[in-house]
């Protein structure tokens, strides 16, 4: 122990080499005990400083602590590195098959196509300044027929096969009863649409006993048939495209006079009646026009039933119209069969209304 400083350097070189070569945490622990433990040479040397000659105490104490600190730092670094490597090793053995499916996203729900279409039509008329009114489906004969200018035993009643609950109580055959109810509730002017379920006693390939209509009613001092044409043109262009035209054809409805049926120019063939390959357009059957709704100027007899609420037929006039929501939806979306609306098959439902 004649040259303690030199010995310190030897210990340091030897230990550093050993630590660098150690391959596991356990080996490092062994080395820590061997070089820095209570019985280690370095520890012994530092403990024995007081026995050294005075001139050696400084260099050995300082140098020894320096070596100790260096070895401790090297050990800590190596332990950290080895632990990180071991963690990575463990993580790698914990790998998943990244090609398996992810968790399913929140399933997308859907509004029914009837609801989606009804809302779109409602929104067009809301924009045109119409309010939305809804009525009951179980209805009095009075509102469904009598006040709509269908007197008892009038042939017009034969136009609609009606479900009855009692003599004077029925399921409404159209949304039109709400015309009368709305006029009973509100003095003119009135601008209102009425969406809802209606019922007719008919069930075959092209009729279902329940379907949906939207009624429209506008009564004011000076509403004209030309105004009806303008409002319906706005509607048709909003729903079927800005290029569409409409055509009014005379018809008969008991509660309008004059009565007209309204056609929209065919949006498949552009109203030409034939498609690009020269064949007949199967949507409009070659006519260039598709019938979409019935309408007309409200019959004075109808206004007469609510004359007491300001609807004097000599002073106010207006128009009414009614359309089938399913028909509009079928035309727009290419749905071939009315019955699909009521099968409630999710394979149908999921195609619309997201």
């Amino acid at each position: 122990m004649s040259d303690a400083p030199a010995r310190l350097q030897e210990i340091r070189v030897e230990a550093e080499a050993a630590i660098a070569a150690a391959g596991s945490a356990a080996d490092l622990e062994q080395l820590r005990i061997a070089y820095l433990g209570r019985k280690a040479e370095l520890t012994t040397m530092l403990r024995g400083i007081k026995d050294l000659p005075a001139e050696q105490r400084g260099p050995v104490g300082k140098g020894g602590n320096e070596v100790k600190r260096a070895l401790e730092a090297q050990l800590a670094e190596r332990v950290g590195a080895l632990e990180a490597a071991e963690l990575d090793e463990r993580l790698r053995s914990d790998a998943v098959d990244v090609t398996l499916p992810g968790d399913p996203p929140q399933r997308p729900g859907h509004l029914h196509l009837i609801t989606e279409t009804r809302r779109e039509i409602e929104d067009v008329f809301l924009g045109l300044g119409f309010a939305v009114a809804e009525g009951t489906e179980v209805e009095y004969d009075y509102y469904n027929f009598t006040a709509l200018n269908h007197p008892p035993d009038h042939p017009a009643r034969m136009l609609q096969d009606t479900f009855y609950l009692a003599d004077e109580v029925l399921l409404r055959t159209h949304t039109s009863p709400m015309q009368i109810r709305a006029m009973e509730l509100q003095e003119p002017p009135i601008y209102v649409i009425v969406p809802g379920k209606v019922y007719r006693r008919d069930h075959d390939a092209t009729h279902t006993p329940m379907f949906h209509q939207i009624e429209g009613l506008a009564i004011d001092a000076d509403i004209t048939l030309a105004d009806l044409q303008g409002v319906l043109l706005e509607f048709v262009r909003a729903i079927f495209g800005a290029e569409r035209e409409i055509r009014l054809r005379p018809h008969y409805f008991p509660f309008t006079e004059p009565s007209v049926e309204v056609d929209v120019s065919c949006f498949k063939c552009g109203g030409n009646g034939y498609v690009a390959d020269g064949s007949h357009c199967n949507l409009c059957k070659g006519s260039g026009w598709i019938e979409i709704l019935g309408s007309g100027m409200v019959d004075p007899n109808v206004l007469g039933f609510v004359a007491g609420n300001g609807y004097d037929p000599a002073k106010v006039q207006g128009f009414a119209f009614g359309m089938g929501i399913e028909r509009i939806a079928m035309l727009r979306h290419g749905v071939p069969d009315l019955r699909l609306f009521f099968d409630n098959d999710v394979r149908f439902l999921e195609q619309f209304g997201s």
Partner: protein
Amino acid sequence: MRVPYAWLREYCDPGLSAADLAERLDLTGTELERIEAVGVPSADGFVVGRVLAAEQHPNADRLRVCTVDVGAGEPSTIVCGAPNVAAGQTVPVALPGATMPDGTTLGKAKLRGVESAGMILAEDELGLGDEHSGIVVLDDGPAAGTPLAELAAIADEALELEITPNRPDCLAVYGIAREVHAATGAALAPDPTEADAEPSGTDTATDHASVEIADPDICLRFTARVFEDVKVGPSPLWLRQRLIAAGQRPISNVVDITNYVMLLCGQPLHAFDLDAVRGSRIVVRRARDGETMTTLDDVERTFDASMALVCDAEGPSGIAGIMGGQVSEVSAATTRVLMEAATWVGPNVLKTSKALALRSEASTRFEKQLHPEQAIAAQRLAARLMVDLCGARLVPGTIDAYPDPLAPTVVTLGLDRLAGILGVRIDDVEVERILASLGFSSARDGDALAVTVPHWRDADVRREADLVEEIARMHGLDKLPTTLPARERAVGRLTHGQRLRRRLEDALRDRGMDEIVAWSFTAPATLAKLRLGDAPTLALANPLSEDHSVLRPLLLPGLLDAARHNAAHGAAGLALFESAHVYAPAGPLEAPAGSPAGATPAAERHHLAGLLTESAPATWRSPAGAADYFAAKGYAEALLAVAGLELAVEPLRDRPYLHPGRAAVALALAPGGAEPVEVGWIGELHPLVAGEWDLDGAAAFELDADRLAELTEGALATFDDVTGFPAVRQDIAVVTTADLPAARIAEVVRDAGGELLANVAVFDVYEGEQVGEGNRSLALALEFRAPDRTLTEDEVGERRVAIEGALAQIGGRLRG
């Protein structure tokens, strides 16, 4: 109305193809259903032939070898299999090259060794009905070789037109001719009912029969004419062809004449065998309750006292305006005919026809109200045909019971009003021209026209608005301008309820539900499967089927049906909802006299219901989440939150279709602390009910959307300062007996926490050894807050002590 085009052209020929004419009529209000071919495809090769000889075929018992003059020099040899062919007959012949109704071209053919140069035709081979038992024998007269088309329209088209119920005048070929005239300007032939037959004899009709209208409320006019020396037999080819082309079956000349006149001018007639009219007397009266008669279709009908009958001295002889009786039916032996042309009261005919479920060509016209003038007009036309075709003698005079003759209707048309309704002014001259073209006469009266309505439009045109329609449709709706209403007020917006319903539907959609639309009808058996057999429902008096016979009192059955349908098609994990009305009785189904003044006959509510068969889909690493009570409750909580309401629940043990331990009444708590209001239910389906729909299990909810709207109508959020001072959050665990509802514990905590306790939420539930048998530990997150200061530890500690004390009173303690 089926209109043979050749027949129509006889009265008004627009010079258009049938298809082009139909398009034109479509724009004036007469809609085409379809155009059908009538007869043979082309009249070429169809001629009149005269059978010169008919010899037995040498090689076939049933064939005859005929020598037929077809007007082409040498007679033709034609083999014919008809039993009725004979020398001397005038017959229709198809020559080689003619196209037959089935589209084949006739060629020369050898029949059992004899070459046949054409074919003698049966009715079906002329495209006239299905008669094939013998050849058609024509009246002598037309020369051999005359094109058959000169005798009858053997190659034609028929327009099937949709006639609206206001236009009985268009249920007639001449009525359509009037429309064609007005729409196209083509010349209109004179009305075929104008000319009358020449009567003969010195007797008068009243010598042979009498007529009495006992009840003028059912009959406006009854005219009768008498014919003698009537020879009943088949009608000539042209008449049979027209009837068949119009969709009627020829019967005998007398009956065919009544049908022909009806089809041509719209007025039904009835021919009686006068010798079968007992007492030679006609009485028009109402039936006696229970009175019976056998109609021409061989059905015994029973009448009630509202129905109108045509009777003879001994009893009913016909149902007024609907169908005659067998008792006085014209037969081959008939020689004396009483021809009836009457005007019945339309609503009565309609009502009777509905009650008897018996509609006829006559009733479909009478029910729309004909005019009494038409009756006498029809008599004139029928008389000419009776004389011409049946060799009859028209007995002078008409029996005419017409108690209250109608004056022509005159309607005032304001020209300003016309412009004000249409939105465009039509030239006055044009207005008068249009009216004249439709048979209206008009006289100028200042700014108005006094318009006289022709009798055939009398039922339909009664008011100014009706004239406006006539002018608009003939002027052309395509000439209307396009404008928007000039409005003083315009507010288009949804109501609160409508807006809320959209948001609720959207919320369910956004949470993954698919909306269905199910029938409003259901079956009593379906309600029985829901164990709701005795629930009050509204039943239809005339359902289409038992399956659709009552109105549904709840939406659940439609969702179950849809779930079963989709499960059967392999769809897993269904989440369906519906937004629709439900129905319940609201007292007796009686209508007030007059307007119900806004009353509604039934209790109808708008419901929103959902059904799920799982709460989360299965993946490769986790099974599907069960569709349990809590999954359904989550939807209900979300819906109420959308409405701005808080959901509270109470156990529901006795709803027959729900699991008695896993169902709850849904209550809504409005902000502001009003009493909770019942808004629906939430629950797992009773396993027996789920099983009825082949489902392993399902959870559902049904809420009253109208109630949610009522509870939140007018609600306006006001500012609450929740950001100014920090909240203090603490978690506590409360041990109680397991049967104490979490809501009760939360309520006790909330009450004890006082105003400073802003929020209480359950975030964990523990049952097990650590809390002891029969106990449960609920973990609650508490949030304390004051709007005006930061809370001190002491303040919060004080509230905790109060909470602990309150919990002790219900047997609870804080844990850990």
